[in-house]
């Protein structure tokens, strides 16, 4: 089993590197500052919610609310944008944390199945977002410093959003690898009964992952508003499934108990990269893939990954009798 998981994780990095090389060699502007920064800027949102999702999946659960919670947070942040980043940023994240707490309450407290509980939160968050925004996009206050976060880059290359995400990734990584909270997260997904019998603080860990995931979604919402100039209550549809796909492609199993935060980041970037490369190929004129083909290809991609994982898992499954 160990072999499978590290193989699964290694595979995504290899794929990422291969695709990057392919892009560099084939397209002129691929390695440009512009492409890099816009790619990272756009994908920073998906990376951060994928990290949150990764932690939830490690416990064997799932969080379907991340997309609409991000939308909600974007609206909250946009509404508070006149007060500047110092208010709007924490407010957006707080909206996410609140949604996460709601999930944690239902799942760790009322023991509702994560699928249904986060489904309910997803609907509620959408409702909340529409309510707060009065059913329309909320333009941000351009005169405040709010958009600075989403629109600026370091050395014209690395958007600030991706740097913030990097911090989140490192924090998540350290928590999982080096704290007992993180080990408990993994233990729950592996064998919840055993974790309890071993005296681990399982409830605390469960609450943590859902609140954390909510916070990540909140952060993504702030990026959305800050980077695109508006709080968008209807955005976020399908984001949760993109995050799940990134986690799965990164080699983390939905059954929980194992996984890798960095590999999930690679998975999210990989999906984004496929998009990016298709755009370039379109630009070259060799193919003319409309935007519609993009999702077909993403789906095919996921299928291939799943089939590969199913094959790798087969030998292990047989001996388990």
């Amino acid at each position, binding site marked *: 089993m160990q072999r499978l998981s590290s193989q699964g994780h290694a595979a995504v990095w290899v794929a990422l590197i291969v695709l990057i090389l392919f892009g560099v060699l084939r397209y002129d502007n691929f390695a440009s500052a512009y492409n890099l920064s816009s790619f990272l800027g756009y994908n920073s949102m998906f990376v951060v919610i994928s990290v949150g999702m990764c932690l939830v999946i490690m416990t064997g659960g799932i969080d379907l609310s991340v997309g609409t919670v991000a939308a909600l947070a974007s609206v909250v942040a946009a509404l508070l944008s006149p007060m500047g980043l110092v208010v709007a940023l924490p407010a957006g994240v707080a909206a996410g944390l609140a949604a996460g707490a709601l999930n944690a309450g239902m799942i760790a407290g009322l023991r509702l199945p994560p699928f249904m509980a986060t489904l309910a939160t997803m609907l509620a968050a959408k409702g909340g977002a*529409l309510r707060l925004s009065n059913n329309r996009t909320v333009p941000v206050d351009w005169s405040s410093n709010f958009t600075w976060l989403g629109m600026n880059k370091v050395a014209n290359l690395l958007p600030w959003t991706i740097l913030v995400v990097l911090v989140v990734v490192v924090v998540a990584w350290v928590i999982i690898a080096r704290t007992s909270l993180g080990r408990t997260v993994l233990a729950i997904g592996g064998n919840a009964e055993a974790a309890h019998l071993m005296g681990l603080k399982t409830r605390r860990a469960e609450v943590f992952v859902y609140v954390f995931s909510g916070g990540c979604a909140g952060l993504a919402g702030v990026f959305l508003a800050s980077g695109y100039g508006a709080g968008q209550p209807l955005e976020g549809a399908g984001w949760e499934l993109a995050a799940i796909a990134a986690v799965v492609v990164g080699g983390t199993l939905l059954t929980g108990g194992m996984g890798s935060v960095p590999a999930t980041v690679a998975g999210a970037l990989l999906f984004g990269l496929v998009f990016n490369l298709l755009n370039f190929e379109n630009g070259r004129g060799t193919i003319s893939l409309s935007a519609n083909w993009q*999702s*077909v290809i993403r789906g095919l991609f996921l299928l291939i990954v799943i089939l590969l994982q199913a094959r790798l898992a087969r030998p292990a499954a047989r001996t388990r009798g």
Partner: protein
Amino acid sequence: MIRRLDPRLAGLLVALGVLIALNLAMTPNFLNMQTLAVNVSQVATIAIVALGMTLVIASGGIDLSVGSVMAVAGALAPIIFLSDWALANPGAGLAASIVVPLLVAALCGVFNGVLIAILGVQPIIATLIFFISGRGVAQVLTNGNLQTFTNPSFTWLGTGRVLSLPVQGWIALILTIGLALVVRRTIYGRYLLSVGGNERAAVLSGVPVARIKIATYVIAATLAGLAGLIVVAINSASDAARIGQLMELDAIAAAVVGGAALSGGRAPMVGTLLGAVFIQLMGYTLIANGVSDEMTLIVTAAIIAIAVWLQRGRRQ
């Protein structure tokens, strides 16, 4: 068949009764045909998909691809009956434009079923594939264009009336009764409930688990295909980007409120229909009485959470 009225079903009927009473009292025009027709129309498509979803949930799985399958079927139909061949053979063309999309939908179900039952992929991941790409396929087929058309024989499916109620309402009703009978009276139905109820015991008793699961996903996908055709018929237009958006969640919600247990083993078909009606009616009640769209979503969310919680309570 109604020998033992499930307390859950009874509770739902009561809640429904209360809602209807409230509406009779408070909402103007509640009982007029137009309102009824609109409501039936909206519920019918969700209910049809939800029926299939209930079967899948009963088998212990889930199907996220239904919305995309709707889109594919809905895209194919106009392509077929607007083709030269169909224009030259209108009868056959019409038939093909119904049968072929359903067949394609069924194939999607085979795909899901094989991944899940034979390759052992988890249902949520396996059906995720079509969720992501199905709509794209539909858009490719239509070149991303909105297709509008006038074809009265086809649109009858969505706009026709029988006894003053929309055709699709009757279809949903007939399907509910039919599937309820299938679940209760056929060997497939028994096998389905045993697979979801206790798969190990089912295997030991000689149940052909893989076949049952595949059949179930095929049924769900075909029903989704049918719903897609109906939506296209209602609108006389096929918008691949829009058909069936978020339908999977509506369907799951209707099933759960109707009494399906996510762990499998229960397939309350009538419950699902009532669940869909309940959610629809709740939404209608709120909107007709001035509550905003957004609040409706929040209320729906609360209903789902409560329904699931009540289910757990009874399980212990």
